[in-house]
């Protein structure tokens, strides 16, 4: 048995040093800073749990979390549901009737936004959604001008607009993953269900979806984490506005770090966000493991 023979620790040294210097130490520093009042210059002043007390009473913070939930819907739940339907339609229908090539082209169209830098996607959409942008022009061109909105400038509409953009960005990812999963799945189950006279929806619901359980888990977990971390689209599309109506925790911490110079408070927000993400990841992985054994 060669494996584990001798000492391989040496190979871990560069990675371990980088991990400590770039991730672990800064992460510990961030937690430390969250217990202080600090403007970024001079010495931090120890204030214990003050930042956290303030945080739990801060309406802006709670509002930013509510907006984050909206983004979880737009980035994880809607893309998973829509992605399942699109993937099944491409795999079962387009690939079989029109060839895998046609399915591949359609899949590529849906996936394309995923390769775009998120900041660039933001530039594209902020221009399309501008008051005199393409969406409003299109609406008036078809006689629905009254439906035109200041999509990103109206506090009642802005979050919905951002959510719509995020669905567009995100939906290709589950489609690609689910289609790959369908290739792994056993076709005989499908054929059996078809012989039994099950409808397309029946087969989709009772055969396809259960077979894709592992993929659904991966997609929901990674997309939920991505939604909780979302920063770039908010920065480019709305800067958290108008009137804080699209603020999210990551942007709120950024504001506290670099605009309000309340570094300690920003660090507390980032720490709470981290704890939330780590807890969520652990819970997800636990459930997934139980599912595998059960």
């Amino acid at each position, binding site marked *: 048995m060669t494996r584990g023979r001798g000492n391989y620790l040496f*190979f871990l040294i560069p990675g371990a040093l980088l991990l400590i210097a770039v991730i672990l130490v800064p992460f510990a520093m961030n937690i430390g800073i969250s217990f202080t009042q600090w403007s970024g210059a001079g010495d931090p002043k120890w204030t214990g749990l003050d930042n956290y007390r303030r945080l739990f009473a801060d309406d802006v913070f709670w509002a930013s979390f509510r907006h984050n939930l909206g983004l979880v819907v737009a980035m994880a739940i809607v893309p998973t549901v829509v992605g399942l339907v699109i993937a099944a339609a491409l795999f079962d229908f387009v690939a079989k009737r029109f060839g895998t090539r046609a399915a591949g082209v359609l899949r590529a169209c849906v996936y394309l936004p995923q*390769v775009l830098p998120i900041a*660039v996607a933001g530039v594209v959409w902020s221009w399309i959604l501008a008051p005199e942008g393409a969406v409003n*022009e299109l609406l008036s061109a078809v006689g629905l001008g009254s439906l035109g909105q200041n999509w990103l400038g109206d506090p009642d509409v802005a979050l919905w607009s951002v959510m719509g953009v995020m669905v567009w960005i995100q939906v290709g990812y589950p489609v690609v993953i689910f289609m790959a*999963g369908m290739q792994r799945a056993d076709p005989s189950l499908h054929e059996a269900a078809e012989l039994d006279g099950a409808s397309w929806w029946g087969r989709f619901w009772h055969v396809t979806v259960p077979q894709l359980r592992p993929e659904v888990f991966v997609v929901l977990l990674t997309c939920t984490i991505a939604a909780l971390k979302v920063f770039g689209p908010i920065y480019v599309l709305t800067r958290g506005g108008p009137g804080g109506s699209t603020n999210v925790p990551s942007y709120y911490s950024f504001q506290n770090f670099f605009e309000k110079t309340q570094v300690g408070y920003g660090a507390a927000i980032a720490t709470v966000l981290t704890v939330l993400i780590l807890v969520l990841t652990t819970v997800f992985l636990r459930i997934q493991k139980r599912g595998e054994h059960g």
Partner: protein
Amino acid sequence: MKRHVTLWSLIVLAVVMLAPFLVVALNALKSPSEYAADGPLSFPDGVYLQGLIDFWVRVGFGQKLLNSVVISGSVAVLAVVISLLNAYALGIGRVRGRTWILIAFLIANTLPQEALAYPLYFLANETGLYDTRLGVIIIFTIIQAAFGTYLLSSTFVGFPNELLEAAYLDGANKWQTLVRIVVPISRPTLGVLFVFFFIWTWNEFFLPLILLISNDTQTVPVALGVLQGQRMMDATMTSASALLGVIPAIAFFLIFQRTLTRGITAGAVK
């Protein structure tokens, strides 16, 4: 009939997905006066490249492209190397405590960058790495390698034992085994990781936004995002900037498409 409905709704879907790209491309080729006269939906009368050229010159787009290529390329190479070394020790070397080490890398990959941002900004200032490409390269090397370590370690667990045994009997030391046996056999996976790391780093926004502030160091997404935030561009210039941001992404997509879809599959189901 029902079949046609499905096909048509899929085609409509594809059009909706592509429409933003088309609208951007159309308007990037219009002159400002043409845009003012006809609005965003009309077809351009001719190909007007001056808007693109003006934007390119004004923001020094060549430099931004170079910065993005240098940063993403270096990160991709270094992160593949670090992932490989880590995974060799964890997956093949089976060092003690490997589960905990893997968990540490996994957490590093899951942490929101917000929780590292200010300390990294502070440390970069202290070490003179603030506003340098090197600083960003170092940071993203380990962030990407954290994922690579996790993925490669799990594939190395299934590495054929006979090959390792044969190399050992031939008197190869650990380095020689790594370079002559492990690297050639895992080349496809390393290729996928390289592509991923390159594109992910290219697309990064948050930390580069904080760490890169001057024209000589900023990447393409940061430069475009900052310009957009300043709201100083007119409509045709915005679409010119968006088009210039979209083109490299589409180029990568076409170049790497096969590797990408294969790789995503590899990552999803271990």
